């Protein structure tokens, strides 16, 4: 599909980065993302390349839309990120979703309120 999948940047090494997609980790390239990208940012990925940095204020909504759209089509999303043997874990959003710029403070039960603020603190699972 031509959607691209949003993921969080965990680690950057030159043109390559490790990114997390609903608890599935993959390598993505940053050659053509066109924006300065830092650890904790969310990027839209297509065929192994980040093609757009998702602005902080749009991350929560973007993730929510994707979860709604991908529900029932997880296999296709996994194909898109090249991880067909993995399992996407919806609902386990890193806290960067709720708190732009910060990384790793979030637990599996965390939610995001309608105004984009975290509903519950949860435990720190690091990155």
């Amino acid at each position, binding site marked *: *599909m*031509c959607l691209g999948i949003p993921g969080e940047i965990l680690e950057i090494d030159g043109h390559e980065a490790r990114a997390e997609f609903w608890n599935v980790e993959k390598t993505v390239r940053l050659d053509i993302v066109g924006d300065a990208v830092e650890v904790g940012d969310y990027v839209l990925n*297509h065929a192994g390349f980040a*093609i757009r940095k998702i602005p902080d204020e749009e991350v929560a909504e973007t993730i929510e*839309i994707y979860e709604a759209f991908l529900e029932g089509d997880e296999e296709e999303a996994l194909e898109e990120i090249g991880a067909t043997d993995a399992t996407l874990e919806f609902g386990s959003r890193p806290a960067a979703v709720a708190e732009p710029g910060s990384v790793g403070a979030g637990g599996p039960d965390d939610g995001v309120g309608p105004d984009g603020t975290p509903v519950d603190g949860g435990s720190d699972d690091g990155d």
Partner: protein
Amino acid sequence: MATDATLQFRDPDAAREIADRIDALMADVGEPVSLMHVCGSHEQAIAKFGLRSMLPEGLAVRMGPGCPVCVTNMPEVDEAVALAEDGAIVATYGDMYRVPGTAGSLADASAAGADVEIVYSASEAVELAEENPGREVVFFATGFETTAAPTAAILAAGPPGNFSVLSAHKYVPPAMEVVAELPDTDVDGFLAAGHAATITGYGLFEAFVEEYEIPVVVGGFEPLDVLLGIERLLEHIDDGRAGLENAYPRCVSEEGNTAALETMWEVFETTSGEWRGIANIPDANLAVREEYAAYDARERFEIDPDVGAADPLTEQCICGDIMAGTADPDECELFGEECTPRNPVGACMVSSEGTCKIWLEYGGRPDL
């Protein structure tokens, strides 16, 4: 856009509200309207969320040539198969694996002992070349701008000498012009694909809108985004103006991803070529520029594709008409019978972005 900010996604009331506006606009227009989108993900949203059932009588929304795998021409598949049979490792996206060539698909070549690897990214194809220094690795590269830019980035970064690209990349805007000119195709408005436009920017469609006087609205893939795109198109049609609008400002800017575009045009240039079943389209294929000829599989190898005799089933296949917007999948005699995702006759049944596969997945004509 004013309407965009107030929408709550997955909100049935909002969907109903847009559907009501669509009803009112259709009543005002007073004649049948035919819209075309060019994105497999749009078709998936329409099928999955039953959007056609919300549309009033007289409003048709069809998928055009929005599936890059589907428009990949048979000789291009034949080239990839020939290279695999000649001993190269051919790497390609999963969607391409089962697409029939004249004599067979890459899957058939693999079954007969050729080395065909499915990769999810151009980077993985480069890794294959690094891991197999004594072998030629050919990346059979397909897709629109969203995958052409990554392929370009790989070549611009200087891959190993045993790596090359067999480009079947396509460029959408000229294809929209061809579809707009097809005598039997009636398109009153185009819903352009939001994610391709993430790369290209929506400004790209300005020339098309001016020349063909057909409105273009860039829309997202979320169900409400699709409905909103349809509503915006109807506004333009009702007003009798051909405008260009970005109904997907979340992801799409006027100029697009300029870094990606620069890389893409540094490596690729447009060339004419056949889009399977549709037409020979000027400037809608992306070929590797001379500066990168060392990585161009068509320059590196003497490819003698076997054009063979046409398969009678392929002749019955109406993929071309479906992509031109003049027929629906369930009008094809092969649909769901001889042609299934497991044993596809036409490419529209192979790719997850193909209209036939999407329709079959949702039980036929997906309007419930």
